[in-house]
């Protein structure tokens, strides 16, 4: 059983007089203990809403509907009442946001905000809490932590604020950390510091990390498993190397072809995906990516493409995937997942190309929705 198992999560916002927004439209993924899982996708594909739904932090507005399951350690987070959810939040599951300034209270010193967390979830008080808070700040690389504790968020630089936020998030040694674009607002050299810090924290404490980002470079550097989202659904899941070496879903391939690379020469044309994320087909009518897809065939339309599990523990949602070089399409189709087997019974696996961080636990057989 994975630490977090998100199954068919859906979030819709219905507003009077406006079209209903299917912000998240059947997202499934799982996170193992100590694993770093990436959620990648372009703006508006539902990354933030997914994480907020898991944390129970979505704005309580009329017309909000959350469906599916998010099982953390045996409890469905979506079914918990507010109190037990608040207990889990911060203690077992913590979150880091993109904008550190707006997630810190501007009128309370950093130190008090950290000790508050310690008092709430670990029952620490007074000098002990202050010492622990200083240790935490030190651990996340804030110089002169004792003095920083008395300072207010606006007195810290963007990078330091993000560090303070991370310190608060890891204060209770949560088992799962969700980071929603933690470095998007920061400069590259600061981003490198923060990513390194997160990697160290995860490695040292065995915390599982869900890394939400639109930057393929960031996931390439730190994620074990990557889920690519498009229009509110996971369209491809794979471990790191296979995903970047052989993307199977045309969208993943398109994304990789769109990014200019530091190590490519001047004048090499990029291969952008035509159109924009606005041009999408509603999932019930077929593949949402169809209007922009170069590999589109007739079968893409009419009903949503089913999730295909392949032999190398990856899955994609596409009827005409990018072929693997050296594998004829027919052979590939035969190698394709046994759609009738029991969920979880993934057939004998090839040597995992990219072993996950935790030794001993192979790529977890995951309960995908049976196609």
């Amino acid at each position, binding site marked *: 059983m994975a630490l977090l198992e998100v199954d068919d999560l859906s979030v819709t916002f219905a507003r009077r007089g406006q079209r209903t927004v299917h912000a998240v439209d059947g997202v499934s993924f799982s996170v193992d203990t100590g694993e770093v899982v990436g959620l990648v996708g372009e703006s508006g594909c539902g990354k933030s809403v997914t994480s907020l739904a898991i944390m129970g932090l979505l704005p309580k507005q009329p017309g909000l509907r959350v469906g599916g399951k998010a099982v953390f350690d045996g409890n469905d987070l979506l079914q918990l009442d507010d109190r037990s959810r608040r207990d889990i939040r911060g203690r077992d599951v913590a979150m880091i946001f993109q904008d550190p300034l707006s997630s810190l209270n501007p009128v309370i010193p950093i130190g008090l905000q950290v000790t508050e967390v310690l008092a709430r979830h670990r029952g620490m008080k007074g000098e002990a809490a202050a010492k622990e808070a200083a240790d935490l700040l030190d651990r996340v690389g804030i110089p002169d932590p004792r003095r920083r504790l008395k300072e207010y968020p606006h007195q810290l630089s963007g990078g330091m604020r993000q560090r303070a936020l991370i310190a608060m998030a890891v204060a209770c040694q949560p088992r799962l950390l969700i980071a929603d674009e933690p470095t998007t607002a920061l400069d590259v050299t600061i981003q*490198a510091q923060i990513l390194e810090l997160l990697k160290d924290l995860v490695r040292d404490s065995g915390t599982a990390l869900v890394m939400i980002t639109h930057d393929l470079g960031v996931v390439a550097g730190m994620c074990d498993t990557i889920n690519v989202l498009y229009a509110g659904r996971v369209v491809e899941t794979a471990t790191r190397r296979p995903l970047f070496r052989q993307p199977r879903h045309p969208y993943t391939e398109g994304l990789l072809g769109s990014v200019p*690379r530091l*190590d490519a020469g001047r004048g090499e*044309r990029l291969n952008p995906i035509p159109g924009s994320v606005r041009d999408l087909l509603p999932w019930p009518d077929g593949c949402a990516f169809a209007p922009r897809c170069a590999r589109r065939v007739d079968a893409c339309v009419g009903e949503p493409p089913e999730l295909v599990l392949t032999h190398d523990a990856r899955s994609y949602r596409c009827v005409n995937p990018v072929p693997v070089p050296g594998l004829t399409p027919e052979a590939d189709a035969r190698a394709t997942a046994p759609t009738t087997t029991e969920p979880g019974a993934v057939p004998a696996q090839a040597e995992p190309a990219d072993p996950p961080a935790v030794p001993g636990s192979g790529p977890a057989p995951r309960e995908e929705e049976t196609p």
Partner: protein
Amino acid sequence: MSDNDILVEVRDLKVHFPIRRGVLFDRTVGHVKAVDGVDLSIPRGKTYGLVGESGCGKSTLGRALLQLTPPTSGEVKFDGVELTTLPAGKLRATRRRMQMIFQDPMSSLDPRQNVESILTEGLQAHGIGANRDDRRRIIGETLDAVGLPKWALSRYPHEFSGGQRQRIGIARALVLGPELIVADEPVSALDVSIQAQVVNLLDELQDSLGLTYLVIAHDLAVVRHISDVVGVMYLGALVEEAPSDRLYTEPLHPYTRALMSAVPVPDPDVEDRRERILLAGDLPSPANPPSGCRFHTRCPWAQPTRCADERPELRQIGASRVACHWAEQIAAGELRPHEVTAKVTRPEDEGEEPGVVSAPSEPGSYV
């Protein structure tokens, strides 16, 4: 066209913004040295890329080059004409030949203008096109060039997607038939898949129209992709300038090395193999830059002599220009990097004391 046909030449350009404080009437208490002595030249038909972290003065340099922000001192020669001393009327006429593309496609378009009126504004200002039909023809051609449909003309900016809006911004710059385009972060507000479309468009336009670009961006990969020469800025000054391939294969300045190693590459193999040079601490405030080499507070190669008290000049080393006293020794491996402890950097313009928040005299704070 020879290689040394220089279109833009910038000499010792400085832009200092006064910092004003005061209860009743403002007084100047210091200067933000946003751009502090930059020399560069851009050959006709080439692309000069400018990279650097937030607040290092890239945008200010671009604007000062176009005389949108008056420079404090220095020279800007455009096609042999000195712009800083040009009378206002002549300068306005010259603007036809140099245009700008902005970062935020939404805020750089007046929400009340439709596309036709956005594109006509410049034509009217310069009296281009004999009549309405003539202007429509020019506009139609420009729309084709940037890949926007004809029906866009009667639409308003908010009816387009981000990528399309950026195309409108590009069309607005192109419609006057400029020679130089300063593109300030042209793709950083766009989605990954749209970024590539716009980057390709800029490339194609350069090929077909022979444009000269100054591309400003914080994304090294983008800049490297579209530039012939890249200049790296740190705290208002160039620290290294090199042909774009060379900058990646042989970065000479310590800051460039750190920057290069910090950029994530979407390739796990590269990511795992790469050696990271992690810089300690944050960017110092440009209002109070460090003495000597401005990078010495964070530089892993900083030496006890010269670094802290002597400001390095840009020196020619091979095909690059580098502002570091020890560039050769570092390249040869004679000097080794060392651990740097982070120092605290204050965010700019913040009161020292908590709770001392100045009265809302900043523009926009009460709208």
